[in-house]
């Protein structure tokens, strides 16, 4: 057993309001630079939809992630020899048009236009060429499914869904969507690292953050194609690949990443997970349907004395072990089993977790009930809302956001992993609604709770951590003590009275 710590993020999708505050915080902090204009290390997608870059889940085209065949785990992108052979042209690389051409507006026109009959306008110009252009795409062009049904219809996760169910998704007045915020998953078995011919990308053993060494990056762009989540971006101005750094400078000073910190819906949680590094290959090499289980298996119990001893042996200090024990991630992921990684079938063992959304729910049940009572159209039911939920509990396959769809996103198509989660979420919701609005809990609600596999205490804890957590409960960050690490690099006293540790080169491309 080789115990390592991982700093992970959890997204509670029920709470995401799709406001993009996270994306903007990230952009302002890290990618508001030349060459990085088109990058969104954090982006928020409307689902169903094709996401950003458009169609990133289409691995036939972009060749991201790993493939498990005949007992071998291979990069979908290339073998080692193929990787070298394709140095001069990487056929799986997305082009700028798969993202979008970044643009701004020529605001100076507003001031310098000559006097005339018409209002002056600021025309859009490309942020690459500076030439006037007509914007035709953006990182969230299909926000809230606006504009065109085309995006939703082309979502690869609709594969395997009943055509009837698919049609229901976009029915007028029944349209349904959810949000999917995405950052780099800081995977345990990262394809970006494996694909880099220069060996420029690495995973930090201390906290699992995956970083690009910009000095070693030689612009081969293999990582961009190999990451199945398309979370490495190529900076066209500096000629280097860049990616989400999980705000490690903030983490090291005890602050949550900017996206999490600024999150308006407070959907994001940060915490430490302990994992067994020895068993990573084992976890990635099982058939699709066992992937989630095998990944959760190598996440260790931070209260187990054996694990604690092994963690100490690996050099984890008490602060980190304590952080792992208090981790909200551990509760959501392992104790309550409410969270899943995005697209486990890519086999990179993504370490950011998602609680699947329950919210856009009742419609089809509602409709079915209405029909059974001879009511069509938009007439509200005269069933009390609480009953409606019980109906849904027994008929989760009728949920408005099809369970199959969620399973394609978070469980490699395995519905049996999604249903228990939705049941738990729903059971907690019913319980708390009765408790706080209906003046008492019914037998039925308790039965449902037991059926979902939760105790009253667990339900209460889930409710509290979901709806009422304080900042400190959402972000349980480990003590990095980077100040001490710096002492080993350089003698801080030697630099006393100076403004820093020396000269840092500006990141400009070579001639």
């Amino acid at each position, binding site marked *: 057993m080789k115990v390592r710590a991982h700093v992970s993020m959890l997204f509670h999708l029920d709470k995401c309001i799709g406001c993009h505050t996270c994306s903007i915080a990230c952009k302002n902090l890290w990618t508001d630079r030349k060459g990085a204009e088109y990058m969104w290390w954090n982006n928020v997608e409307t689902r169903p939809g094709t996401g950003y870059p458009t169609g990133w889940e289409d691995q036939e085209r972009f060749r991201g992630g790993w493939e498990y065949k005949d007992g071998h785990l291979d990069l979908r992108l290339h073998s*080692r*020899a193929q*990787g*070298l052979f394709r*140095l*001069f*042209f*990487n*056929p799986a*690389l*997305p*082009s*700028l048009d798969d993202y979008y051409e970044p643009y701004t507006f020529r605001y100076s026109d507003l001031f310098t236009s000559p006097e005339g009959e018409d209002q002056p306008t600021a025309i859009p110009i*490309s942020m*690459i*060429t*500076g*030439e006037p252009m007509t914007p035709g795409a953006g990182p969230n062009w299909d926000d809230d499914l606006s504009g065109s049904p085309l995006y939703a219809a082309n979502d690869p996760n609709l594969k395997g869904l009943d055509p009837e169910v698919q049609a229901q998704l976009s029915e007028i007045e029944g349209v349904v969507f959810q949000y999917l915020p995405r950052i780099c998953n800081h995977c345990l*078995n*990262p394809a970006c*690292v*494996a694909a880099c*011919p*220069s*060996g420029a*990308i*690495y*995973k*930090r*053993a*201390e906290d699992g953050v995956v970083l690009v060494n*910009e*000095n*070693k*990056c*030689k*612009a*081969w*762009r293999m990582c961009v194609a190999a990451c199945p989540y398309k979370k490495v971006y*190529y900076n*066209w*101005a*500096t*000629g*280097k690949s860049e990616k989400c750094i999980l705000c490690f400078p903030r983490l090291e000073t005890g602050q949550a990443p900017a996206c999490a910190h600024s999150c308006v819906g407070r959907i994001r949680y940060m915490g430490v997970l302990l994992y067994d*590094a020895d068993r*990573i290959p084992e976890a990635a090499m099982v058939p699709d349907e066992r992937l989630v289980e095998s990944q959760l298996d190598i996440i260790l119990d931070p209260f187990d004395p054996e694990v604690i001893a092994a963690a100490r042996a690996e*050099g984890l200090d008490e602060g980190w072990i304590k952080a792992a024990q208090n981790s909200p991630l551990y509760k959501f992921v392992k104790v309550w089993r409410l969270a899943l990684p995005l697209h486990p079938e890519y086999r990179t063992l993504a370490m950011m977790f998602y609680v699947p959304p329950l919210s856009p729910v009742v419609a089809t049940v509602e409709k079915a009930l209405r029909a059974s009572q001879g009511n069509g159209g938009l007439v509200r039911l005269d069933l009390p809302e609480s009953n409606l939920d019980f109906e849904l509990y027994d008929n989760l396959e009728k949920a408005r956001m099809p369970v199959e769809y969620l399973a394609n996103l978070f469980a490699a198509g395995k519905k049996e992993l999604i249903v228990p989660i939705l049941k738990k979420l729903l059971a907690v919701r019913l319980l708390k609604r009765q408790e706080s609005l209906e003046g008492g809990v019914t037998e039925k609600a308790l039965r449902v709770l037991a059926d979902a596999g939760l105790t009253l205490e667990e339900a209460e804890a889930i409710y509290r951590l979901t709806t009422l957590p304080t900042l400190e409960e959402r972000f349980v960050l480990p003590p990095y003590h980077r100040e001490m*690490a710096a002492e*080993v*690099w350089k003698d801080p006293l030697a630099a006393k009275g100076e403004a820093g540790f020396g000269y840092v*080169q500006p*990141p*400009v*491309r*070579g*001639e």
Partner: protein
Amino acid sequence: MNWNTLLFGVFPYIALTLAVGVTAYRMVYRPFSVSAQSSQLLEQKRLFFGSTAMHWGLVLVLLGHLLALLLPKGLLLWNAVPVRLYLLEITGLGLGFWALVGTYVLLARRISVARVRAASTGMDYLVLVLILLSALSGVLTALFYRYGSFWFPAVMTPYLWSVLTLQPRPELLLDLPFWIKFHVFNFWLLVAVFPFSRLVHVITVPLGYLLRPWQIVVWVRKLAR
């Protein structure tokens, strides 16, 4: 000292000194810049034709030159049978032509695609022009002064060795026709430009990829010790 000595006896040493010295400096003190910037993100189709042709054409032709430098006798023996000579010459000419076309495509692309132009520096154009001239003069030489693989071992191999062993004999080139001299000088020019341009990326060919483990994990703490 005459022009011939200056261009082929002195300049090569300036070029080589620059290539070694500046490259070493750049690797140590400017590692960020040691790379060739890719523009594939900005334009793909023309890059595919241009880049593949130029790179593979150049790599193979250069290997041919290297072979003649290292195994001149072997080359002559191979050429003793006419069919083999023709085969070699045709292959070489074909590859040279391939590289020439590829370089032309790349240069045209860099000039005409607005996005790529926006990401280009003056040096990017200069490098392409030099390579284009090199490929052009090489192809012309192969066409008009047949058969290169015959006379190269007799003239160029001793000349290159004389430079490399610090006993330059530029007079060996004195009577060669203009295009061949041009080709040689252009080569030294490329060597001189090498450390100041994207050409340095030649030294970054990541052969280590064949051997390294798939995953790389770094202990920041242990690294510091």
